[in-house]
């Protein structure tokens, strides 16, 4: 297996955008190619979770490649629900590691804010088991079930709320973030109930945006040290545990085994906090924090920008925003910027970064490890 390098990374500002998805992807893709000093990629991997229903566009790999000005480049699309961006990164990694291609453009994005919230929620919920969906289960509903079980295990309301407070504070420092305002603990604790005990300010927003990286066989500033995928049952009712995600645990095991080091080497992490309880669960599932300690570590400030282990310096899904298939790549873009000293205003002291992405209700998760060369 060849070493794979991230030669360039770029993303759009995330939020309510009026541009077409193809234009958002072009902004990110052309930015990443410029940063890499690559004129044209040997291949393109595109991530978009559901352009068929959000936009009415299909055949999206060719659609995006033609729009980007690379109609002759071999292009394919990868989809694993909300972790599609991370999955596309893996596909690009595989092409370069196998020696099939020398410079691969990986670009992901989603455009959702032109639809009303109930419609967006319905489209996202298509990734849930059909029987559970027939009972009205949505992503927040299943996350509500998980959150109640987590709280019964001793995680407190203040611990869940502090994740939002921290990630909003980080988003304030990130010009690409969807939300650039602080929230207080009381605001989170008093925000309206969405799916008891999950409240509005525990949840990430609906966002538009795109992100891209260029992966090369030629040595560059950042190396892909490890990458792992983990899966679990589509139905939540088919799992024995609600308060940890096997898919993350498997992905982390695989990624650390490939990297040849353990979680203690990680300096900074981007974690899939679509709902704030997921940040606590995932910190433990990845081994970054010992089991049962993530809430305490968060309240103690260990995961702030200046803490022992900064988590979600970008603001996370909570504040940077969650443009579905862009998210896994936006996390990787932030990690690249962190380990190369380009995260102005929110820079941490980092040489090793971890990105963690959740697909569906933790059915298809990814852990990616990046190191400064």
């Amino acid at each position, binding site marked *: 297996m060849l070493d794979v390098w991230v030669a360039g990374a770029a993303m759009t500002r995330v939020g309510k955008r009026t541009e077409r998805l193809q234009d958002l992807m072009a902004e990110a893709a052309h930015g990443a190619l410029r940063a890499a000093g690559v004129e044209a990629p040997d291949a393109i991997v595109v991530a978009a979770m559901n352009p068929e229903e959000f936009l009415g566009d299909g055949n999206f790999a060719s659609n995006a490649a033609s729009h980007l000005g690379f109609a002759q480049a071999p292009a394919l699309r990868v989809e694993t629900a909300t972790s599609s961006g991370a999955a596309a990164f893996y596909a690009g990694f595989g092409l370069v590691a196998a020696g099939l291609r020398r410079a691969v453009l990986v670009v992901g994005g989603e455009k959702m804010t032109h639809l009303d919230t*109930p419609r967006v*929620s*319905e489209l996202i*919920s298509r990734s849930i088991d059909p*029987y*559970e969906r027939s*009972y*009205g*289960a*949505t992503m*927040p*509903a299943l996350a*509500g*079930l*998980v*959150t*109640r*079980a987590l709280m*019964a295990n001793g995680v407190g309301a203040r611990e869940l709320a502090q994740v939002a407070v921290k990630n909003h504070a980080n988003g304030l420092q990130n010009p690409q973030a969807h939300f650039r305002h602080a929230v207080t603990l009381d605001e989170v604790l008093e925000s*309206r*109930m*969405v*799916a*008891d*005990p*999950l409240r509005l300010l525990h949840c990430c927003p609906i966002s538009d945006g795109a992100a891209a990286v260029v992966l090369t066989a030629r040595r560059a500033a950042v190396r892909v040290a490890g990458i792992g995928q983990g899966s679990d*049952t589509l*139905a*939540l*009712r*088919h*799992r024995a545990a*609600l308060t940890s995600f096997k898919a993350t645990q498997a992905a982390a095991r695989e990624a650390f085994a490939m990297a040849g080091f353990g979680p203690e080497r990680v300096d900074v992490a981007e974690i899939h906090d679509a709902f704030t309880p997921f940040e606590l669960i995932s910190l433990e599932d990845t081994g970054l924090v010992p089991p049962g300690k993530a809430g305490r570590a968060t309240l103690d400030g260990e995961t702030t920008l200046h803490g022992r282990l900064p988590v979600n310096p970008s603001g996370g899904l909570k504040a940077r925003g969650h443009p579905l298939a862009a998210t896994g790549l936006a996390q990787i873009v932030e990690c690249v910027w962190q380990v190369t000293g380009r995260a102005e205003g929110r820079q941490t002291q980092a040489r090793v970064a971890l990105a963690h992405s959740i697909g569906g209700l933790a059915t298809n998760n990814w852990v990616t490890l990046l190191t400064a060369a």
Partner: protein
Amino acid sequence: MIERIDASRCPACRTIVAPPASYCPHHPVAMEPVSLPGAGEIVSFTTLHSPPTGFKAPLHIALVELEGGARFVCHGAETRGLRIGSPVAIEAVGRVYYFSYLGVVDRARLFWRRAGHAGDRVNAIARSLAKRVWKG
């Protein structure tokens, strides 16, 4: 009256799922049909305040562990007084399953039903012993 709930069991790992599935989620093996009593314990529950189209707010959704180990998703009329671990009965209204909190009387009835099963087993053993004596 306790409902029976259709489920399926994996002949390889004994996993039970409800409603029945063609294949075990963990083995490429056809599952065998089984039926479970519609009673169990609350694993978790939530209330959706803006449910999807076609559902009325507030929408109570619960995950219930049935006797036998399968977990089941159902609706409820309310969640007042409900806790993780609360014993509930499952009832079909139309084709939709609802949980209802079991009071002391209900629980006593369930206990006696189970005791009844034990009684059946004692009778069966007695019958087989009697048969053996008769043949012997």
